[in-house]
C-alpha cells in the first residue's frame, strides 16, 4: 500500500493502524459544509464501505412503544423520495448496493457498501433514505407483520427468552430493561407518526459519526458528505436517558420443556471510558472472553463436559455497564455448571491471575488486532468505534501500550471490585434439576 501524498488542507491528522508493511492510514476529512468523516483509503478493490452512527438507539424508545427504533431501522430502505419500496429495493439490488440500518441500545447504525461505479447513486440513495423516508402505510403494515412473526419466533428460543428476561430483571425501570425489538403489544401500538417523528427528532448531524473505507479519495468524499447528510437536522433532540445501575442478586427460573437449560447472568461492569477498562478487558479475556483458552471453557467444557458453549463478556453501555456470561447444560447438570462458574467468579476475585495467564492474554489481545482489519466493512466499523468512544485518531498506536501496562495486581483489584458472585442476576430457561 502506498503512502498517499496529502492533497487536502482539510486533512488534519494522520495515524497508522499497522506499522508493518501493510500500513493503513486514517485521515480526518471535513467537507465544505463542515461534516467530518474518518477515511481509510484503499484502492486495491473497487469497493467503498461507509459506516454511520447516531447517538440514541433503542434506549430512546418511549414506554409502551418498545421496538420503535428497530421498526424505523426496518423501514428506512422501504422507499424514500419518489421511489416506493419495490423501486428503491430493486435499484439497490440491481446495482448491488448493500444498505443496512440497525438499532443498538445506544446508537442507530447505518451501513453502506457499494462498487465504485455506483458510488454516487449509492450515497444519494442513502441520503434519500435518511432524510425523505416514505413510511408508506402498506410497507409499515408488511414490516409490522414481519416483526410480529419474528417476535413469535423469539419467544420460541430459549436463548431469546433468557436474554429478554435478564434485561427486564437487571433494569426494571430503565429503557435498557425493555426488549429492543419490542413485544407484540408495543409493536401493534406504533403509528406512522411515531416513525416519522423518531427520524425527525433523533437523526441529527450533531451526534452523527461517519467512517469511510475503500476506493475513494478525500476530494471525492467531501462533496458526497454534504449531499448525503446535509439535509439532516443540525441538531437531534437531547438524549434524556438517565444513568443507572443494574439490579443485584436475583435468580429466576423460566420453565420451558427443553432438554438443555440455558443460563444467562450479569452484574455491574465497567464503562468504556473507565480507567479500569483495559484491566477489565484483560481480566475478562482470561475469565471467559478468550474462547477455548478461557478459564470458563477449561473448567466447564474441557474438564467436566458440562457445556458446548460458555463465555463471559463486557458490555459497556452509555448509561450502565455489565459484565456477564452464558452457558447451556442438560437439565440435570445445570446447577453444577452454575456452581462451577460462580466458583470461577470467586477464584478470580480472590486470587487474580497468574503471570503466564496475563502474558498470554496480552499476546492475544495485541497479536490478534490486525484480524480486525480483514475487510473494508470491518475497518469502517473499527473507525466508528474509535470515534464514538473518543479514543483518538492515534489510538491504534497507543493500544498496545495500554494493554501491556496492565499488571496482575491491577487485575486482582478490578476482579475483586467487579466479580461478586452473589450479586449476579441469573436467569435459567429450561427445566433445571434442583433449581425449581
Amino acid at each position: 500500500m502506498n503512502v498517499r501524498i496529502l492533497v487536502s488542507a482539510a486533512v488534519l491528522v494522520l495515524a497508522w493502524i499497522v506499522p508493518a508493511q501493510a500500513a493503513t492510514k486514517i485521515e480526518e476529512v471535513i467537507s465544505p459544509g463542515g461534516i467530518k468523516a474518518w477515511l481509510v483509503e484503499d484502492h486495491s478493490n473497487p469497493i467503498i464501505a461507509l459506516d454511520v452512527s447516531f447517538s440514541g438507539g433503542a434506549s430512546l424508545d418511549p414506554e409502551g412503544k418498545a421496538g420503535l427504533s428497530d421498526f424505523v431501522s426496518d423501514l428506512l430502505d422501504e422507499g424514500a423520495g419518489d421511489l416506493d419500496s419495490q423501486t428503491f429495493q430493486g435499484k439497490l439490488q440491481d446495482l448491488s448496493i448493500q444498505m443496512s440500518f440497525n438499532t443498538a441500545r445506544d446508537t442507530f447504525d447505518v451501513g453502506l457498501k457499494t462498487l465504485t461505479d455506483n458510488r454516487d447513486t449509492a450515497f444519494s440513495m442513502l441520503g434519500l433514505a435518511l432524510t425523505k423516508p416514505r413510511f408508506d402505510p402498506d410497507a409499515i403494515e408488511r414490516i409490522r407483520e414481519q416483526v410480529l412473526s419474528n417476535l413469535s419466533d423469539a419467544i420460541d428460543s430459549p436463548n431469546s427468552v433468557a436474554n429478554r428476561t435478564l434485561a427486564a430483571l437487571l433494569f426494571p425501570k430503565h429503557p435498557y430493561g425493555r426488549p429492543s425489538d419490542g413485544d407484540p403489544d408495543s409493536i401493534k401500538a406504533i403509528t406512522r407518526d411515531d416513525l416519522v417523528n423518531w427520524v425527525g427528532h433523533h437523526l441529527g448531524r450533531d451526534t452523527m459519526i461517519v467512517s469511510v473505507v475503500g476506493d475513494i479519495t478525500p476530494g471525492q468524499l467531501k462533496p458526497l458528505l454534504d449531499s448525503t447528510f446535509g439535509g439532516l437536522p443540525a441538531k437531534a433532540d437531547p438524549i434524556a436517558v438517565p444513568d443507572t445501575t443494574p439490579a443485584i442478586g436475583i435468580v429466576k427460573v423460566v420453565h420451558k420443556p427443553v432438554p438443555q437449560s440455558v443460563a444467562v447472568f450479569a452484574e455491574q461492569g465497567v464503562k468504556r471510558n473507565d480507567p479500569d477498562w483495559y484491566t477489565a478487558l484483560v481480566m475478562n479475556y482470561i475469565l471467559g472472553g478468550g474462547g477455548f483458552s478461557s478459564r470458563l471453557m477449561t473448567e466447564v467444557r474441557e474438564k467436566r463436559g458440562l457445556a458446548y458453549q460458555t463465555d463471559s463478556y463486557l458490555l459497556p453501555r452509555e448509561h450502565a455497564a455489565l459484565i456477564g456470561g452464558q452457558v447451556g447444560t442438560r437439565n440435570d447438570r445445570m446447577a453444577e455448571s452454575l456452581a462451577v462458574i460462580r466458583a470461577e467468579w470467586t477464584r478470580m476475585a480472590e486470587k487474580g491471575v497468574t503471570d503466564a495467564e496475563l502474558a498470554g492474554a496480552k499476546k492475544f489481545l495485541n497479536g490478534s488486532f490486525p484480524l480486525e482489519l480483514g475487510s473494508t466493512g470491518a475497518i469502517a466499523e473499527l473507525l466508528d468505534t474509535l470515534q464514538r468512544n473518543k479514543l483518538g485518531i492515534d489510538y491504534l498506536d497507543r493500544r498496545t501500550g495500554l494493554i501491556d501496562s496492565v499488571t496482575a495486581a491491577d487485575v486482582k483489584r478490578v476482579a475483586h471490585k467487579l466479580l461478586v458472585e452473589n450479586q449476579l442476576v441469573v436467569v435459567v430457561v429450561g427445566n433445571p434439576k434442583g433449581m425449581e
Partner: protein
Amino acid sequence: MTARSLGFALILVACVAVKPAFAQVFGAEAFTLPNGMQIVAVPNHRAPVVSSMMIYKVGGVDEMPGKTGLAHMVEHMMFKGTKTVLPGMFSRIVAANGGRDDAFTSEDYTGYYQDISADRLPEIMRLEADRMVNLSLHEKDFTPEHQVVLEEERMRVENSPEGKFDQQMNAALYLNAAYHHPVIGWKSEVEGLTLADVIAFHDKWYAPNNAVLIVSGDITLAQLKPMAEKYFGSLPARKLPPRLVLEEPHPLAARSLVMKDGNVHQPSWNRMYLAPSHHAGDTQFVYPLEVLAQIVGSDTTSRLYRHLVIEQKLASEVWAGYSADARGPTSFDFFASPNPGVDIDKIATAMDAEIMAIVEQGVTPEDVQRAKTKMRAEVAYARDSYQTGARVLAGALATGGTIADVEEWPQRIAAVTPDQVNEAARAILREERSVTGELLPAKPGEGPPVEPGSEVPPETLGKSLR
C-alpha cells in the same frame, strides 16, 4: 454442518448462503506435494494476516452404519493432544500467537482453520502437520468431550424445533445417499461412540493425500511452497479406503411431513426437491438452477417475495435457495412463513401455485439478465475479505471441484440462457422429487415427547412460556 464452536458455525453458514455470488477470480495458485497433499494460496494483501484452512476429504457420509456422528467426534478430538502437544494446548498456542482457531464438520469434508498474523503461519502449519500424524488420545479426555458433543446436539437439535425438523426433512429426501443421516449423528448412536472408534477413523482418513491446505490473505504460492514442503513434505502418503458413491434411486413418490412441537409459535412451510450438484445427477442444470434461485427467491424484489409477501400479504418471509457444492446430490429448497393468523394451508396452496407457474410459464429473458447482472456484480465483493477465498475454495476443492470451477464461475453464469433455466426448472421441480414439510405449533398433549426420560413435569408442557 456442525462445528467445534458456535461462532464459526455462524460465519460459515453466512458464507455458504452467499457463496454463489462470491465465487470469482480470486487469483488462486496451487501445487501438489509428492505425497499428494494439495496446497493452495489465495493472495489478498489488504492486511498482514492470513486465513489458513486445512481440509480433509472425509465427513459425515464416510461413517459406517451405527456410528453416525463419528466424523464430528473426531473433529472435536483433534484438539485433544498429540505426542508433543498436550490436550487443549492447540488453541492456546494459536491464541498466544494472536490467532483465532476453530473447526467444523460437514457431510463431505472436515475443516480446521486459523486466522492469524501472516508471520505466524509456520507455527500453524507445524501444529497441523503434527495432529495429522501424531494424534495421541486418552480416555480421560474423550469422556468429557463426548459429553460436550452431546450438549452440542442438545443445543442445535433437541432444544430447537427447526433443528429437529431439518433432520427429519433430510432423512426423508435422501433415501440412499449418506446425507440421509445428520452430520451431528443420531443421538442414540452418538451416545455409543468410543475412543477406539475415533482413533480408527482418524487412522483411516487423516493423511496428506486426503488433505488440502488453503491459505488466503497476505501470502503468495512462492512463500507458501517452501513452508508446505518443510512441514508436510515428509509425511508419507497412505492407502485410503474408497469413498462411498452417493447415489439416489430414481425418485417415485412425493413425501410429506408434519411435525408439531410445543416450542413452535411461528409455523413454517418447507419444500425440498432432489437436485444435482456439481458432481452428481444432471450436472448440466447446476448453473441454470443457481440463476433460477436468484430469480425466484433471493431477495425482496424476487418473484416469491413480491407475490406472497407484498401482493397477497400471506407470508412474512419467503425464499428459495440452492447450493451445488456437494459430492453427491443436493436440494433446491423453498421456505415460507405465514403472517400471524394466516392458515398454513393457504401458504401451501400459494407456494404450490408459484412453483407450478415457474415450471409452466418459465422465467423471462429479462428475469435472467437481471439475475446474471446482479450475480456478476456481487463478485467484486468476494475479494474484500481475506477469509472469503479460503472458505469458497475449500467448499469446491473438498467436494471434487477444481480451482477453475471457482475462478470461471462468472463466465459460466454469464453463459446461462433462459431456455436452460426453464429446462432445469421443468426437470427438477417435479412432484416425485419433493419432500414437503410443515412445522407447526403443538397443542398441549400433541406432538412427540420432549426427551424420553427427561424430567419435565407434565403440567408445564405447553404452558411453559406464560
